[in-house]
């Protein structure tokens, strides 16, 4: 894989807004001068891939969105054996060599999901306020060790009896300084900060690797 390709892994529980974040990030990567492609890992259908293609029609080519089946194991597909995702990424880069940013969206999973470093340079773990304010305290490698923790759907916190301040405070407490970003993906709130942080993390990694 070309070192100049930024590979972003977006994982997290079912329904937290991974697809919405992916769709919100693509135009921002384009505005930042990057050329993104998207690989979704649907559990059972091509629903996410179709949704991304539909929402990003006219923004990126539909061929730049691929759905990959995961054999009923979304965490296996991005951690233990990322073979099929790596192959899909290589095929996309062969077909569209101008792509310099690959977004891998994992299938919805549980708190143990992590991305293989062989697949993603920057691992983003997504919670949302409806998971409950206790969720950051429950930990798990995605919450504590991902490069960026996103707490999405901040707009509905009040309706699901989640104290956002508590959720954010606990997230920072378990992450030892690693970034926590609050978003409302559908309205775009916080997504620019997420995009900037992804690029900054990647550039910092590359700087370390060069050094």
């Amino acid at each position, binding site marked *: 894989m070309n070192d100049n390709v930024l590979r972003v892994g977006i994982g997290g529980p079912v329904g937290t807004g991974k697809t919405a974040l992916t769709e919100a990030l693509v135009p921002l990567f384009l505005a930042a001068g990057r050329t993104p492609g998207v690989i979704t890992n649907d559990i059972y259908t091509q629903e996410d891939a179709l949704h991304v293609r539909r929402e990003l029609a006219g923004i990126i080519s539909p061929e730049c969105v691929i759905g990959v*089946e*995961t054999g009923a194991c979304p965490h296996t597909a991005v951690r233990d054996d990322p073979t099929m995702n790596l192959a899909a990424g290589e095929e996309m880069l062969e077909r569209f060599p101008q792509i310099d940013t690959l977004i891998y969206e994992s299938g919805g999973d549980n708190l143990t999901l992590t991305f293989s470093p062989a697949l993603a340079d920057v691992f983003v773990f997504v919670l949302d306020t409806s998971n409950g304010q206790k969720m950051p305290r429950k930990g798990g490698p995605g919450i504590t060790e991902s490069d960026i923790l996103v707490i999405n759907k901040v707009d509905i916190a009040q309706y699901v009896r989640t104290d956002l301040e508590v959720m954010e405070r606990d997230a920072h407490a378990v992450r030892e300084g690693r970034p926590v970003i609050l978003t409302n993906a559908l309205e775009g709130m916080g997504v620019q900060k997420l995009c900037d942080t992804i690029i900054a993390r990647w550039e910092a990694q590359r700087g370390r690797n060069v050094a």
Partner: protein
Amino acid sequence: MVTPKDASGPASLLISLQLSDSAFPSGFYAMSHGLEGFHQQGLVDGDTIGDLLEDILVRTAGPGDATALARTHGAAVRQDWDHVAELDRLLFASKLNSELRRSSTRSGRQLIDIVSEAYAGTHGGDDIATWAEWVRSRRTPGCQAIATGVCYAATGVAVEQAVVSDLFAFAISFAGAALRLRLTDHRSTQKLLRRVQPVIEEVAADAVARPEADIGGFTPVGDIMSAGHERAPARLFTS
């Protein structure tokens, strides 16, 4: 580092165990090898899953991938890479549905890349690296059975053991898919794997003896199931 000149006895067994391990990152976990298509059509259940696996081994996996692996083994031992590439194209062409071709090449390309790195500097590593470069440069499709055959030949694993090992990896992958589709449970899965062991022996012996011209099975119902599967609105597996 231990670098045996050829693989025999425990050394050969260990290579087989590593490459056929269900934890080996070949992408096999994402394949059902036709099973999900039959399941979607209601043509298989817990009582008939063993019959279907036997049929697929005898009619598809044996004449197809296993035979191609056996013929590749000989060509790779001779370092006849043009012949290996011809076998790769032949096997690729014998897979009628695109999902079967895509699954095989995605697996094979990643597999040869991983093994070339893992076995670099050890016996057989140079030959594996040679084939990995053919695949990487897209001079050849990169089917899984061909890549696996090169790996076994390069490391000195005998052809019979190589074919048996890959067929058993296939059976484990199929059984794993059956488990996830709720066609088996953890006990019946092990009974299934024990049941097909003598079948694998026979299928492997036939594959080792089968000529190159006969690569590819004839399974019209399986091909129809696969054709339906690759267009199904919902599926768990790539094949």
